[in-house]
Protein backbone atom coordinates (compact mmCIF):
# COMPACT_ATOMS: atom_id res chain seq x y z
CA UNK A 1 0.00 0.00 0.00
CA UNK A 2 1.45 3.37 -1.01
CA UNK A 3 1.97 6.13 1.51
CA UNK A 4 -0.75 8.78 1.80
CA UNK A 5 1.44 11.56 0.43
CA UNK A 6 2.26 9.54 -2.70
CA UNK A 7 -1.32 9.13 -3.89
CA UNK A 8 -3.60 11.46 -5.79
CA UNK A 9 -7.30 11.80 -4.92
CA UNK A 10 -8.40 9.28 -7.53
CA UNK A 11 -6.00 6.63 -6.19
CA UNK A 12 -6.89 7.40 -2.57
CA UNK A 13 -10.65 7.09 -3.19
CA UNK A 14 -10.08 3.80 -5.04
CA UNK A 15 -7.82 2.51 -2.27
CA UNK A 16 -10.46 3.29 0.36
CA UNK A 17 -13.21 1.68 -1.71
CA UNK A 18 -11.05 -1.44 -2.13
CA UNK A 19 -10.77 -1.60 1.64
CA UNK A 20 -7.00 -1.02 1.79
CA UNK A 21 -7.46 1.97 4.09
CA UNK A 22 -10.40 3.65 5.77
CA UNK A 23 -11.64 7.20 5.32
CA UNK A 24 -10.82 7.83 8.98
CA UNK A 25 -7.20 6.65 8.55
CA UNK A 26 -6.91 8.81 5.45
CA UNK A 27 -8.17 11.89 7.28
CA UNK A 28 -5.81 11.10 10.15
CA UNK A 29 -2.98 10.98 7.59
CA UNK A 30 -3.95 14.43 6.33
CA UNK A 31 -4.01 15.79 9.89
CA UNK A 32 -0.59 14.23 10.56
CA UNK A 33 1.04 15.91 7.55
CA UNK A 34 -0.64 19.21 8.47
CA UNK A 35 0.76 18.87 12.00
CA UNK A 36 4.23 18.17 10.61
CA UNK A 37 4.34 20.99 8.11
CA UNK A 38 1.85 23.76 8.82
CA UNK A 39 3.98 25.68 11.31
CA UNK A 40 6.65 26.10 8.65
CA UNK A 41 4.45 26.66 5.59
CA UNK A 42 1.23 28.18 7.03
CA UNK A 43 -1.13 26.70 4.46
CA UNK A 44 -4.08 26.39 6.86
CA UNK A 45 -5.53 29.18 8.99
CA UNK A 46 -7.85 26.72 10.73
CA UNK A 47 -8.15 22.94 10.92
CA UNK A 48 -11.37 21.19 11.96
CA UNK A 49 -9.76 18.08 13.40
CA UNK A 50 -12.76 16.61 15.22
CA UNK A 51 -15.28 17.55 12.55
CA UNK A 52 -13.16 16.00 9.80
CA UNK A 53 -12.56 12.76 11.71
CA UNK A 54 -16.28 12.50 12.56
CA UNK A 55 -17.25 13.00 8.92
CA UNK A 56 -14.71 10.38 7.82
CA UNK A 57 -15.97 7.88 10.41
CA UNK A 58 -19.53 8.43 9.18
CA UNK A 59 -18.38 7.70 5.62
CA UNK A 60 -16.77 4.46 6.77
CA UNK A 61 -19.97 3.47 8.57
CA UNK A 62 -22.16 4.25 5.57
CA UNK A 63 -19.83 2.26 3.34
CA UNK A 64 -19.91 -0.68 5.76
CA UNK A 65 -23.72 -0.49 5.64
CA UNK A 66 -23.55 -0.97 1.88
CA UNK A 67 -23.93 2.60 0.63
CA UNK A 68 -22.34 3.22 -2.78
CA UNK A 69 -19.21 5.41 -2.52
CA UNK A 70 -19.03 8.82 -4.18
CA UNK A 71 -16.25 9.76 -6.61
CA UNK A 72 -14.27 11.49 -3.83
CA UNK A 73 -15.05 8.94 -1.14
CA UNK A 74 -12.93 9.69 1.93
CA UNK A 75 -10.66 12.20 0.18
CA UNK A 76 -9.44 15.03 2.44
CA UNK A 77 -9.93 18.45 0.85
CA UNK A 78 -8.87 21.98 1.78
CA UNK A 79 -11.05 25.05 1.21
CA UNK A 80 -9.87 28.62 0.69
CA UNK A 81 -10.97 30.85 3.57
CA UNK A 82 -13.49 32.66 1.31
CA UNK A 83 -15.72 29.60 0.91
CA UNK A 84 -18.81 29.10 3.02
CA UNK A 85 -19.11 25.93 5.08
CA UNK A 86 -21.81 26.27 7.70
CA UNK A 87 -20.23 26.80 11.10
CA UNK A 88 -16.61 27.12 9.91
CA UNK A 89 -14.76 30.41 10.35
CA UNK A 90 -14.71 32.11 6.94
CA UNK A 91 -12.54 35.16 7.47
CA UNK A 92 -11.22 35.82 3.93
CA UNK A 93 -7.94 36.40 5.83
CA UNK A 94 -9.33 39.79 6.84
CA UNK A 95 -9.74 41.35 10.26
CA UNK A 96 -13.11 42.70 9.12
CA UNK A 97 -14.55 39.16 8.94
CA UNK A 98 -12.73 37.78 11.98
CA UNK A 99 -14.99 35.24 13.67
CA UNK A 100 -17.54 35.13 10.85
CA UNK A 101 -19.26 31.73 10.70
CA UNK A 102 -21.68 31.49 7.77
CA UNK A 103 -25.09 30.00 8.47
CA UNK A 104 -25.08 28.17 5.13
CA UNK A 105 -22.84 26.02 2.93
CA UNK A 106 -21.73 26.93 -0.60
CA UNK A 107 -23.21 24.85 -3.41
CA UNK A 108 -19.77 23.66 -4.57
CA UNK A 109 -18.74 22.71 -1.01
CA UNK A 110 -21.96 20.74 -0.52
CA UNK A 111 -21.35 18.96 -3.82
CA UNK A 112 -17.85 17.98 -2.63
CA UNK A 113 -19.26 16.67 0.63
CA UNK A 114 -22.03 14.79 -1.17
CA UNK A 115 -19.32 13.15 -3.32
CA UNK A 116 -17.61 11.86 -0.18
CA UNK A 117 -14.88 14.48 0.26
CA UNK A 118 -13.84 15.44 3.80
CA UNK A 119 -13.12 19.17 4.36
CA UNK A 120 -10.26 19.37 6.86
CA UNK A 121 -9.78 23.11 7.16
CA UNK A 122 -9.65 26.59 5.68
CA UNK A 123 -6.55 27.89 3.93
CA UNK A 124 -4.65 31.16 4.01
CA UNK A 125 -5.06 33.68 1.21
CA UNK A 126 -4.41 37.28 0.30
CA UNK A 127 -7.10 39.30 2.05
CA UNK A 128 -10.36 39.06 0.08
CA UNK A 129 -8.34 37.32 -2.70
CA UNK A 130 -6.58 40.59 -3.51
CA UNK A 131 -2.95 39.78 -4.14
CA UNK A 132 -0.55 37.45 -5.88
CA UNK A 133 1.78 36.34 -3.07
CA UNK A 134 -0.11 35.73 0.26
CA UNK A 135 1.59 38.82 1.69
CA UNK A 136 -1.76 40.62 1.96
CA UNK A 137 -3.18 38.09 4.45
CA UNK A 138 -4.03 39.59 7.83
CA UNK A 139 -2.78 36.36 9.45
CA UNK A 140 0.72 35.90 8.01
CA UNK A 141 2.51 34.70 4.90
CA UNK A 142 2.29 31.25 3.35
CA UNK A 143 5.61 29.79 2.19
CA UNK A 144 6.46 27.89 -0.97
CA UNK A 145 7.42 24.26 -0.20
CA UNK A 146 10.02 24.39 -2.98
CA UNK A 147 11.82 27.26 -1.25
CA UNK A 148 10.42 28.70 1.95
CA UNK A 149 11.98 32.10 1.31
CA UNK A 150 9.69 32.45 -1.72
CA UNK A 151 6.00 33.07 -2.27
CA UNK A 152 3.76 30.22 -3.31
CA UNK A 153 1.90 32.77 -5.45
CA UNK A 154 -1.59 33.94 -4.65
CA UNK A 155 -4.20 34.71 -3.83
CA UNK A 156 -5.16 31.05 -3.20
CA UNK A 157 -1.77 30.53 -1.54
CA UNK A 158 -2.70 28.13 1.26
CA UNK A 159 -4.77 25.82 -0.94
CA UNK A 160 -1.88 25.54 -3.42
CA UNK A 161 0.64 24.77 -0.68
CA UNK A 162 -1.68 22.30 1.07
CA UNK A 163 -1.73 20.25 -2.15
CA UNK A 164 1.91 20.74 -3.18
CA UNK A 165 3.27 19.80 0.25
CA UNK A 166 1.24 16.59 0.55
CA UNK A 167 -1.19 17.76 3.26
CA UNK A 168 -4.23 17.07 1.05
CA UNK A 169 -4.48 15.69 -2.50
CA UNK A 170 -7.00 18.29 -3.68
CA UNK A 171 -8.12 21.77 -2.66
CA UNK A 172 -10.35 24.51 -3.92
CA UNK A 173 -9.26 28.05 -4.63
CA UNK A 174 -10.95 30.95 -6.37
CA UNK A 175 -9.52 32.45 -9.54
CA UNK A 176 -10.49 36.04 -10.35
CA UNK A 177 -7.44 37.09 -12.36
CA UNK A 178 -5.18 34.07 -11.96
CA UNK A 179 -5.41 33.32 -8.24
CA UNK A 180 -5.42 29.55 -8.83
CA UNK A 181 -3.40 29.20 -12.05
CA UNK A 182 -0.49 31.39 -10.86
CA UNK A 183 0.06 29.64 -7.48
CA UNK A 184 -0.41 26.25 -9.18
CA UNK A 185 2.43 27.13 -11.56
CA UNK A 186 4.65 28.40 -8.75
CA UNK A 187 4.02 25.30 -6.60
CA UNK A 188 4.33 22.70 -9.36
CA UNK A 189 0.75 21.41 -9.34
CA UNK A 190 -2.34 21.52 -11.57
CA UNK A 191 -4.68 24.52 -11.29
CA UNK A 192 -7.83 24.70 -13.37
CA UNK A 193 -10.02 27.76 -13.92
CA UNK A 194 -13.31 26.70 -15.54
CA UNK A 195 -15.31 28.67 -18.07
CA UNK A 196 -17.03 31.51 -16.22
CA UNK A 197 -20.42 30.20 -15.10
CA UNK A 198 -19.49 26.51 -15.12
CA UNK A 199 -19.32 26.40 -11.31
CA UNK A 200 -21.87 28.08 -9.03
CA UNK A 201 -20.53 31.03 -7.03
CA UNK A 202 -23.22 30.64 -4.36
CA UNK A 203 -21.30 30.65 -1.10
CA UNK A 204 -18.07 32.09 -2.49
CA UNK A 205 -17.38 35.47 -0.87
CA UNK A 206 -17.52 37.91 -3.79
CA UNK A 207 -14.51 39.93 -5.01
CA UNK A 208 -15.08 40.62 -8.73
CA UNK A 209 -18.38 38.99 -9.55
CA UNK A 210 -18.00 38.94 -13.33
CA UNK A 211 -14.59 37.28 -12.95
CA UNK A 212 -14.62 35.03 -9.85
CA UNK A 213 -14.60 31.27 -10.51
CA UNK A 214 -14.17 28.45 -8.03
CA UNK A 215 -11.23 26.43 -9.30
CA UNK A 216 -9.55 23.19 -8.19
CA UNK A 217 -5.92 22.49 -7.33
CA UNK A 218 -4.70 18.93 -7.78
CA UNK A 219 -1.52 16.92 -8.09
CA UNK A 220 -2.81 15.27 -11.29
CA UNK A 221 -4.99 16.38 -14.17
CA UNK A 222 -7.23 13.36 -13.65
CA UNK A 223 -8.01 14.66 -10.16
CA UNK A 224 -8.81 18.12 -11.55
CA UNK A 225 -11.25 16.41 -13.95
CA UNK A 226 -12.82 14.46 -11.11
CA UNK A 227 -13.32 17.57 -8.96
CA UNK A 228 -14.79 19.48 -11.89
CA UNK A 229 -17.23 16.63 -12.54
CA UNK A 230 -18.42 16.97 -8.96
CA UNK A 231 -18.63 20.76 -8.51
CA UNK A 232 -19.74 21.99 -11.96
CA UNK A 233 -23.24 22.27 -13.38
CA UNK A 234 -26.20 24.63 -13.08
CA UNK A 235 -27.39 25.96 -9.73
CA UNK A 236 -30.56 27.98 -9.35
CA UNK A 237 -28.90 29.91 -6.52
CA UNK A 238 -26.45 31.52 -8.98
CA UNK A 239 -28.15 33.04 -12.01
CA UNK A 240 -24.80 33.52 -13.77
CA UNK A 241 -24.33 29.74 -14.02
CA UNK A 242 -24.40 28.66 -17.64
CA UNK A 243 -26.97 26.12 -18.71
CA UNK A 244 -24.50 23.35 -19.49
CA UNK A 245 -24.17 19.89 -18.02
CA UNK A 246 -21.43 19.14 -15.48
CA UNK A 247 -17.96 18.77 -16.97
CA UNK A 248 -17.57 15.15 -18.11
CA UNK A 249 -14.59 13.59 -16.39
CA UNK A 250 -14.03 11.16 -19.17
CA UNK A 251 -12.74 14.41 -20.52
CA UNK A 252 -9.28 13.61 -19.83
CA UNK A 253 -8.50 11.15 -22.54
CA UNK A 254 -7.53 13.36 -25.48
CA UNK A 255 -4.53 13.10 -27.70
CA UNK A 256 -2.18 15.77 -28.97
CA UNK A 257 -1.96 14.35 -32.51
CA UNK A 258 -3.77 16.61 -34.94
CA UNK A 259 -4.50 19.25 -32.30
CA UNK A 260 -4.04 22.83 -33.47
CA UNK A 261 -2.21 24.74 -30.72
CA UNK A 262 -2.03 28.52 -31.01
CA UNK A 263 1.04 30.26 -29.63
CA UNK A 264 0.65 34.04 -29.21
CA UNK A 265 3.91 36.02 -29.40
CA UNK A 266 2.38 38.61 -27.05
CA UNK A 267 2.80 36.07 -24.21
CA UNK A 268 6.53 35.81 -24.88
CA UNK A 269 7.63 39.46 -24.44
CA UNK A 270 11.28 40.49 -24.38
CA UNK A 271 11.26 40.83 -20.60
CA UNK A 272 9.88 37.31 -20.03
CA UNK A 273 12.20 35.44 -17.66
CA UNK A 274 14.64 33.61 -19.95
CA UNK A 275 14.48 30.32 -18.05
CA UNK A 276 10.67 30.37 -18.01
CA UNK A 277 10.69 31.09 -21.74
CA UNK A 278 13.00 28.15 -22.44
CA UNK A 279 10.88 25.86 -20.27
CA UNK A 280 7.58 26.80 -21.95
CA UNK A 281 9.10 26.68 -25.44
CA UNK A 282 10.36 23.18 -24.69
CA UNK A 283 6.84 22.24 -23.54
CA UNK A 284 5.38 23.49 -26.81
CA UNK A 285 8.04 21.52 -28.72
CA UNK A 286 7.00 18.44 -26.74
CA UNK A 287 3.42 18.99 -27.92
CA UNK A 288 4.66 19.28 -31.50
CA UNK A 289 6.66 16.06 -31.09
CA UNK A 290 3.43 14.30 -30.09
CA UNK A 291 1.74 15.41 -33.28
CA UNK A 292 0.23 18.79 -32.40
CA UNK A 293 0.35 21.48 -35.04
CA UNK A 294 1.82 24.69 -33.63
CA UNK A 295 0.23 27.79 -35.14
CA UNK A 296 1.19 31.41 -34.39
CA UNK A 297 -1.86 33.45 -33.36
CA UNK A 298 -2.09 37.12 -32.49
CA UNK A 299 -3.74 38.53 -29.36
CA UNK A 300 -2.77 42.17 -29.85
CA UNK A 301 -4.56 43.67 -26.84
CA UNK A 302 -2.70 41.50 -24.33
CA UNK A 303 -0.61 44.49 -23.24
CA UNK A 304 -3.68 46.39 -22.04
CA UNK A 305 -5.22 43.44 -20.20
CA UNK A 306 -3.69 44.39 -16.83
CA UNK A 307 -5.16 47.92 -16.65
CA UNK A 308 -8.46 46.61 -18.04
CA UNK A 309 -8.57 43.92 -15.38
CA UNK A 310 -7.62 46.21 -12.52
CA UNK A 311 -10.30 48.75 -13.49
CA UNK A 312 -13.04 46.11 -13.83
CA UNK A 313 -12.03 44.04 -10.80
CA UNK A 314 -11.58 46.99 -8.44
CA UNK A 315 -14.86 48.55 -9.57
CA UNK A 316 -16.69 45.32 -8.77
CA UNK A 317 -14.76 44.93 -5.52
CA UNK A 318 -15.61 48.43 -4.32
CA UNK A 319 -19.27 47.56 -4.74
CA UNK A 320 -19.03 44.04 -3.27
CA UNK A 321 -17.04 45.17 -0.23
CA UNK A 322 -19.47 47.97 0.61
CA UNK A 323 -21.35 45.39 2.70
CA UNK A 324 -18.59 45.24 5.34
CA UNK A 325 -19.69 48.05 7.57
CA UNK A 326 -19.93 46.62 11.07
CA UNK A 327 -23.66 45.92 10.96
CA UNK A 328 -24.20 42.31 9.90
CA UNK A 329 -20.90 40.58 10.64
CA UNK A 330 -17.39 41.02 11.91
CA UNK A 331 -16.04 43.26 14.66
CA UNK A 332 -17.37 46.81 14.89
CA UNK A 333 -15.43 49.99 15.69
CA UNK A 334 -17.64 52.69 17.17
CA UNK A 335 -15.81 55.72 15.74
CA UNK A 336 -17.41 59.04 16.70
CA UNK A 337 -20.66 57.35 17.71
CA UNK A 338 -22.63 58.26 14.57
CA UNK A 339 -23.75 55.71 11.99
CA UNK A 340 -21.43 57.12 9.30
CA UNK A 341 -18.59 57.33 11.78
CA UNK A 342 -19.14 53.71 12.80
CA UNK A 343 -19.06 52.56 9.15
CA UNK A 344 -15.83 54.44 8.44
CA UNK A 345 -14.06 53.43 11.65
CA UNK A 346 -15.02 49.77 11.19
CA UNK A 347 -13.74 49.74 7.61
CA UNK A 348 -10.55 51.58 8.56
CA UNK A 349 -9.75 49.10 11.32
CA UNK A 350 -10.85 46.02 9.40
CA UNK A 351 -9.35 46.32 5.92
CA UNK A 352 -5.66 45.95 5.10
CA UNK A 353 -3.66 48.29 2.86
CA UNK A 354 -4.14 46.51 -0.47
CA UNK A 355 -7.87 46.09 0.05
CA UNK A 356 -8.18 49.79 0.87
CA UNK A 357 -6.13 50.64 -2.21
CA UNK A 358 -8.42 48.58 -4.42
CA UNK A 359 -11.62 49.91 -2.86
CA UNK A 360 -10.33 53.43 -3.46
CA UNK A 361 -9.34 52.65 -7.04
CA UNK A 362 -12.69 50.98 -7.74
CA UNK A 363 -14.66 53.79 -6.16
CA UNK A 364 -12.68 56.32 -8.20
CA UNK A 365 -13.22 54.61 -11.57
CA UNK A 366 -16.96 54.43 -10.86
CA UNK A 367 -17.32 57.96 -9.52
CA UNK A 368 -19.25 60.70 -11.23
CA UNK A 369 -17.18 62.35 -13.96
CA UNK A 370 -14.72 59.46 -14.25
CA UNK A 371 -17.06 56.50 -14.79
CA UNK A 372 -17.16 56.54 -18.58
CA UNK A 373 -13.50 57.45 -19.02
CA UNK A 374 -12.30 54.53 -16.89
CA UNK A 375 -14.92 51.88 -16.20
CA UNK A 376 -16.88 52.34 -19.42
CA UNK A 377 -13.71 52.26 -21.48
CA UNK A 378 -12.36 49.20 -19.67
CA UNK A 379 -15.58 47.29 -20.44
CA UNK A 380 -15.13 48.09 -24.14
CA UNK A 381 -11.51 46.97 -24.11
CA UNK A 382 -12.66 43.82 -22.33
CA UNK A 383 -14.92 43.13 -25.33
CA UNK A 384 -11.95 43.59 -27.69
CA UNK A 385 -9.91 41.10 -25.64
CA UNK A 386 -12.72 38.53 -25.72
CA UNK A 387 -13.32 39.08 -29.45
CA UNK A 388 -9.69 38.54 -30.36
CA UNK A 389 -9.72 35.20 -28.54
CA UNK A 390 -12.81 34.29 -30.61
CA UNK A 391 -10.88 35.09 -33.77
CA UNK A 392 -7.90 33.00 -32.63
CA UNK A 393 -10.18 30.06 -31.84
CA UNK A 394 -11.39 30.06 -35.45
CA UNK A 395 -7.84 28.96 -36.32
CA UNK A 396 -6.78 26.83 -33.35
CA UNK A 397 -8.25 24.44 -30.77
CA UNK A 398 -6.37 25.82 -27.77
CA UNK A 399 -3.82 28.52 -26.96
CA UNK A 400 -0.62 27.57 -25.09
CA UNK A 401 1.56 30.06 -23.21
CA UNK A 402 3.30 30.58 -19.85
CA UNK A 403 1.07 30.80 -16.78
CA UNK A 404 3.28 33.40 -15.08
CA UNK A 405 6.15 35.56 -16.32
CA UNK A 406 8.52 34.28 -13.62
CA UNK A 407 8.92 31.32 -11.31
CA UNK A 408 8.13 31.95 -7.62
CA UNK A 409 9.60 35.28 -6.52
CA UNK A 410 11.04 36.03 -3.10
CA UNK A 411 8.76 37.08 -0.27
CA UNK A 412 9.14 40.84 0.12
CA UNK A 413 10.41 41.34 -3.43
CA UNK A 414 7.27 43.06 -4.75
CA UNK A 415 5.22 43.78 -1.66
CA UNK A 416 6.10 47.48 -1.55
CA UNK A 417 5.29 48.06 -5.21
CA UNK A 418 1.63 47.50 -6.17
CA UNK A 419 2.28 47.96 -9.90
CA UNK A 420 5.06 45.33 -9.97
CA UNK A 421 2.77 42.94 -8.10
CA UNK A 422 -0.11 43.58 -10.54
CA UNK A 423 2.19 42.78 -13.48
CA UNK A 424 2.74 39.26 -12.16
CA UNK A 425 -0.85 38.58 -13.32
CA UNK A 426 -0.12 39.60 -16.94
CA UNK A 427 -0.60 36.14 -18.43
CA UNK A 428 -3.64 35.02 -16.46
CA UNK A 429 -5.99 38.03 -16.57
CA UNK A 430 -6.86 37.86 -20.30
CA UNK A 431 -8.62 34.47 -19.96
CA UNK A 432 -10.38 35.79 -16.85
CA UNK A 433 -11.69 38.87 -18.64
CA UNK A 434 -12.86 36.74 -21.58
CA UNK A 435 -14.40 34.11 -19.25
CA UNK A 436 -12.38 31.29 -20.82
CA UNK A 437 -11.37 27.92 -19.36
CA UNK A 438 -7.64 27.74 -18.63
CA UNK A 439 -5.41 25.16 -17.01
CA UNK A 440 -1.94 25.50 -15.55
CA UNK A 441 -0.05 22.21 -15.76
CA UNK A 442 3.54 21.60 -14.58
CA UNK A 443 5.97 21.86 -17.53
CA UNK A 444 9.41 21.78 -15.94
CA UNK A 445 11.80 23.48 -13.57
CA UNK A 446 14.20 26.38 -13.54
CA UNK A 447 17.16 27.13 -11.32
CA UNK A 448 20.16 25.25 -10.05
CA UNK A 449 19.88 21.52 -9.42
CA UNK A 450 19.61 21.94 -5.66
CA UNK A 451 17.26 24.93 -5.77
CA UNK A 452 14.72 24.14 -8.43
CA UNK A 453 11.48 26.02 -8.91
CA UNK A 454 8.52 24.75 -10.94
CA UNK A 455 7.08 26.39 -14.06
CA UNK A 456 3.54 26.12 -15.42
CA UNK A 457 2.24 25.81 -18.97
CA UNK A 458 -1.12 27.49 -19.46
CA UNK A 459 -3.64 25.93 -21.86
CA UNK A 460 -6.59 28.21 -22.73
CA UNK A 461 -9.73 27.15 -24.60
CA UNK A 462 -12.89 28.62 -26.06
CA UNK A 463 -15.95 29.14 -23.81
CA UNK A 464 -17.38 25.84 -22.52
CA UNK A 465 -14.47 23.83 -23.96
CA UNK A 466 -13.57 22.75 -20.42
CA UNK A 467 -13.40 19.10 -21.47
CA UNK A 468 -10.97 19.87 -24.29
CA UNK A 469 -8.69 22.04 -22.15
CA UNK A 470 -8.52 19.35 -19.46
CA UNK A 471 -7.92 16.67 -22.11
CA UNK A 472 -5.03 18.63 -23.60
CA UNK A 473 -3.52 19.23 -20.16
CA UNK A 474 -3.90 15.55 -19.38
CA UNK A 475 -2.31 14.49 -22.66
CA UNK A 476 0.56 16.90 -22.05
CA UNK A 477 1.02 15.51 -18.55
CA UNK A 478 1.00 11.95 -19.89
CA UNK A 479 3.57 12.83 -22.57
CA UNK A 480 5.97 14.75 -20.35
CA UNK A 481 5.10 14.25 -16.68
CA UNK A 482 6.92 17.05 -14.89
CA UNK A 483 5.11 16.27 -11.65
CA UNK A 484 7.49 15.99 -8.74
CA UNK A 485 7.15 16.43 -5.04
CA UNK A 486 9.01 19.30 -3.38
CA UNK A 487 11.92 18.48 -1.08
CA UNK A 488 10.84 17.78 2.47
CA UNK A 489 12.99 20.57 3.83
CA UNK A 490 13.42 23.55 1.55
CA UNK A 491 15.52 26.16 3.21
CA UNK A 492 16.07 27.98 -0.07
CA UNK A 493 19.08 29.82 -1.30
CA UNK A 494 18.96 32.37 1.49
Amino acid sequence: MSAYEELDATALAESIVRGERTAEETTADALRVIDERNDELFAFVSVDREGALARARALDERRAAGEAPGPLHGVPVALKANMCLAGAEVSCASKILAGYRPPYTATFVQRLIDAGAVPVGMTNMDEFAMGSSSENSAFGVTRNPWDVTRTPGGSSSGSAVAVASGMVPIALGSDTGGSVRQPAAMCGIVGYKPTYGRVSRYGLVAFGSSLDQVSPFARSTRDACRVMEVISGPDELDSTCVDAPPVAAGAGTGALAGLRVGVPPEYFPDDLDADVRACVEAAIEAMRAKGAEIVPVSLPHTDVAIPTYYVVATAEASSNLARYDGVRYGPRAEGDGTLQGMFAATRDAGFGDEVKRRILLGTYVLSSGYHEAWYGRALRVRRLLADEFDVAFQEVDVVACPTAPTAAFSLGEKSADPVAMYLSDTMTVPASLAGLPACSVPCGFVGARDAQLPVGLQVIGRPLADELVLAVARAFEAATDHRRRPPRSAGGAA
Partner: protein
Amino acid sequence: MDSPELEIVKRTAALARLEITDAEARTLAPQFARILAQFQVLTSVDVEGVEPMTGATRLADVTRADEPRASLPRAATLANAPDERDGFYGVPKTIGGGS
Protein backbone atom coordinates in the same frame (compact mmCIF):
# COMPACT_ATOMS: atom_id res chain seq x y z
CA MET B 1 -2.79 73.12 -0.49
CA ASP B 2 -3.20 69.42 -1.21
CA SER B 3 -1.82 67.99 -4.44
CA PRO B 4 -4.48 66.88 -6.96
CA GLU B 5 -3.75 63.20 -6.13
CA LEU B 6 -4.06 63.82 -2.40
CA GLU B 7 -7.34 65.63 -2.97
CA ILE B 8 -8.64 62.72 -5.11
CA VAL B 9 -7.64 60.16 -2.49
CA LYS B 10 -9.36 62.06 0.31
CA ARG B 11 -12.55 62.67 -1.69
CA THR B 12 -12.69 59.05 -2.92
CA ALA B 13 -12.08 57.72 0.60
CA ALA B 14 -15.09 59.68 1.79
CA LEU B 15 -17.20 58.20 -1.03
CA ALA B 16 -15.96 54.71 -0.13
CA ARG B 17 -16.69 55.25 3.58
CA LEU B 18 -13.05 54.71 4.42
CA GLU B 19 -11.64 56.69 7.29
CA ILE B 20 -8.02 57.27 6.35
CA THR B 21 -5.53 59.34 8.24
CA ASP B 22 -3.53 62.14 6.66
CA ALA B 23 -0.45 59.94 6.83
CA GLU B 24 -2.27 57.10 5.02
CA ALA B 25 -3.53 59.54 2.40
CA ARG B 26 0.01 60.79 1.83
CA THR B 27 1.22 57.22 1.28
CA LEU B 28 -1.69 56.33 -0.97
CA ALA B 29 -1.64 59.46 -3.16
CA PRO B 30 1.62 58.74 -5.06
CA GLN B 31 0.67 55.05 -5.39
CA PHE B 32 -2.69 56.09 -6.77
CA ALA B 33 -1.02 58.48 -9.21
CA ARG B 34 1.39 55.79 -10.37
CA ILE B 35 -1.35 53.20 -10.88
CA LEU B 36 -3.52 55.65 -12.82
CA ALA B 37 -0.51 56.62 -14.95
CA GLN B 38 -0.02 52.94 -15.80
CA PHE B 39 -3.71 52.65 -16.63
CA GLN B 40 -3.54 55.67 -18.93
CA VAL B 41 -2.59 53.27 -21.74
CA LEU B 42 -6.29 52.37 -21.96
CA THR B 43 -6.97 55.77 -23.53
CA SER B 44 -4.80 54.77 -26.51
CA VAL B 45 -7.12 51.89 -27.45
CA ASP B 46 -9.64 52.61 -30.19
CA VAL B 47 -13.01 51.58 -28.73
CA GLU B 48 -15.17 53.48 -31.20
CA GLY B 49 -18.36 51.49 -31.79
CA VAL B 50 -17.37 48.68 -29.37
CA GLU B 51 -20.14 47.51 -27.05
CA PRO B 52 -19.22 47.31 -23.35
CA MET B 53 -18.82 43.74 -22.06
CA THR B 54 -20.55 43.75 -18.70
CA GLY B 55 -20.28 40.06 -17.89
CA ALA B 56 -18.11 37.11 -18.80
CA THR B 57 -20.84 35.08 -20.46
CA ARG B 58 -23.18 35.87 -23.31
CA LEU B 59 -26.18 34.88 -21.24
CA ALA B 60 -29.46 36.65 -21.55
CA ASP B 61 -31.03 37.66 -18.25
CA VAL B 62 -31.95 34.57 -16.26
CA THR B 63 -35.17 34.70 -14.29
CA ARG B 64 -37.22 32.31 -12.21
CA ALA B 65 -40.81 32.28 -11.09
CA ASP B 66 -41.40 34.86 -8.35
CA GLU B 67 -42.57 32.43 -5.72
CA PRO B 68 -41.96 32.66 -1.98
CA ARG B 69 -39.62 30.08 -0.55
CA ALA B 70 -37.99 29.34 2.76
CA SER B 71 -35.09 31.56 3.77
CA LEU B 72 -32.47 31.23 6.49
CA PRO B 73 -33.83 31.28 10.03
CA ARG B 74 -33.72 34.74 11.59
CA ALA B 75 -31.55 33.70 14.52
CA ALA B 76 -28.96 32.07 12.25
CA THR B 77 -28.83 35.16 10.08
CA LEU B 78 -28.37 37.47 13.04
CA ALA B 79 -25.84 35.25 14.82
CA ASN B 80 -22.84 37.05 13.31
CA ALA B 81 -24.04 40.58 14.06
CA PRO B 82 -21.82 42.57 16.43
CA ASP B 83 -24.92 44.23 17.92
CA GLU B 84 -28.13 42.20 17.82
CA ARG B 85 -31.13 43.59 19.68
CA ASP B 86 -34.44 41.76 19.95
CA GLY B 87 -34.14 40.10 16.56
CA PHE B 88 -32.85 43.20 14.77
CA TYR B 89 -29.49 44.64 13.82
CA GLY B 90 -28.50 47.38 16.22
CA VAL B 91 -26.84 50.54 14.89
CA PRO B 92 -26.16 53.99 16.35
CA LYS B 93 -29.18 56.28 16.55
CA THR B 94 -29.62 58.23 13.31
CA ILE B 95 -32.56 60.53 14.10
CA GLY B 96 -33.54 62.83 16.89
CA GLY B 97 -30.06 63.52 18.22
CA GLY B 98 -27.43 64.55 15.70
CA SER B 99 -26.49 62.64 12.56
